[in-house]
């Protein structure tokens, strides 16, 4: 190809490719806007189920949880986020038993690594996708997960 025809073919292919690019952006101008208008769209907002935001301890209707206060989650936590206080009680048949007193979790130190949930032998805790966790003071980030007056769910025999 001679340099003259190269010049002109380059010019016209350049123009056509520019017009092609503009047609693409023209179509993009009319596409649906993807922005999520957050505080207004709370009702329709979809957060993935596995999104880890807040550690919870599920309680059933009788206010019973599954935590045996074994302390494995506390040991596995890389940041020392979880602190478990347990108490010794004596059951009706005279045996001594370790039960959960307070289960404290510090959101401010948590990295949401999920190791506590994975290692829990009795599936007592799980992460929920409730993401609106902002508070005004740091002390409010420390939450007690076991409800007041709750006790260990008895295994069915």
């Amino acid at each position, binding site marked *: 190809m001679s340099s003259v025809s190269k010049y002109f073919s380059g010019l016209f292919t350049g123009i056509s490719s520019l017009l092609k690019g*503009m047609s693409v952006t023209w179509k993009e101008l009319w596409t649906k*806007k*993807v*922005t999520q*208008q957050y505080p207004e769209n709370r009702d329709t907002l979809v957060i993935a189920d596995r999104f880890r935001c807040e550690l919870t301890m599920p309680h059933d209707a009788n206010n019973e949880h599954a935590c045996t206060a074994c302390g494995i989650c506390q040991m596995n936590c890389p940041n020392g986020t979880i602190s478990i206080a347990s108490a010794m009680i004596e059951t009706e048949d005279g045996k001594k038993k370790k039960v959960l007193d307070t289960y404290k979790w510090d959101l401010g130190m948590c990295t949401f690594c999920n190791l506590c949930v994975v290692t829990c032998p009795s599936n007592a805790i799980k992460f929920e996708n409730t993401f609106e966790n902002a508070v005004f003071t740091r002390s409010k980030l420390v939450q007690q997960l076991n409800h007041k007056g709750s006790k260990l769910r008895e295994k069915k025999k």
Partner: protein
Amino acid sequence: MLLNYSQPLEVTNLTSWLDSTLRGSLSEFWVLLIEFVIVGALLLTAYAVIALILIYAERKITAFFQARFGPNRVGKWGLLQSVADMIKILLKEIVKINRSDRFLFFAAPFFMIIASMSTFGAIAFGKGLQAIDFNIGVLYVTAVSSLGIIGVLLAGWSSNNKYSMIGAMRSGAQFVSYELSAGFALMTIVVLAGTMQFSEMIDKQQYCWNIFNGHISSIVAFVIYLISGHAETNRGPFDLPEAESELTAGYHTEYSGLQFGFFYLAEYLNMFIIASIATTVFLGGYLPIQVKGWEAFNGIMAFIPSYVWFFGKTAVLIFLSLWVRWSFPRLRIDQLLNLEWKYLLPINLVNIVVMVILVLTGLTLTDLFPSLF
């Protein structure tokens, strides 16, 4: 005073009434003085208001091109966003830079704003809405608008900063090259119109806009003018003087507060000025669409006031510039200079010769079909 019933919305009614009332009670000197002050104040206000509207429009349209909503929190649809930004920029501290050339540093933004302001005055916004109307209007506009580059170079030099310097030098190279193309494109139309005065040029386009009148040659000149005008405003694919990924913000890196505001304002107004000069020269300025022989249609079109036509046409061109800006990636400096010196300039030179031949041999549309146009 007689009301103009066919065009009741024109500003000429108001201005001629004002002029005759003032002349009735005051001497010539005071009438002129009052009118000059009013025109100056109105132009300054229009300058700021148009910039605010443009900033809002650009942010909105940019967002739509990127499938976003853009500003929508301050006021209804975010209409007050640019007002809020203006207040913020007015309140910011003007930082004094160590070891900068203090005098030039402070002078630079004024060069920018004065250049674009004096070009702004030469724009015909509507019938009777033109402050400066020389018989060499086109030359005046090209001359005055190129003063802005002094501001850019001064800003880059006096900041004592490598990024600013590189940005200013790039801007200088770009501006000098593309001003040539823009000038030649305007010259093509001057050949066609046979005048350099904006008002006369607009009057001649009543039935046939210049872009149609000179067909091939005019359209080529129009495209070249838009490209080079776009390059002069340092925007879109030609924004390498302020390429933020390499030069933080280019020549205005060190500026803050109102001084930065001046650069910002001048950039947006230059976009408007380029679009409005293109409107005036190529698209019939403030004239409505008129077809020879269709009296009813012409009457309806003329009922729409001239400033609406002007701003409508200008808005279309501004939209085109935004569309280009968000379509193409940034050019490298060698590609930029290649485009100008190897493509636009030769095409332009050939184009002027073609236009001269068209005019001399009577091949323009008005010469070919005198009954239609």
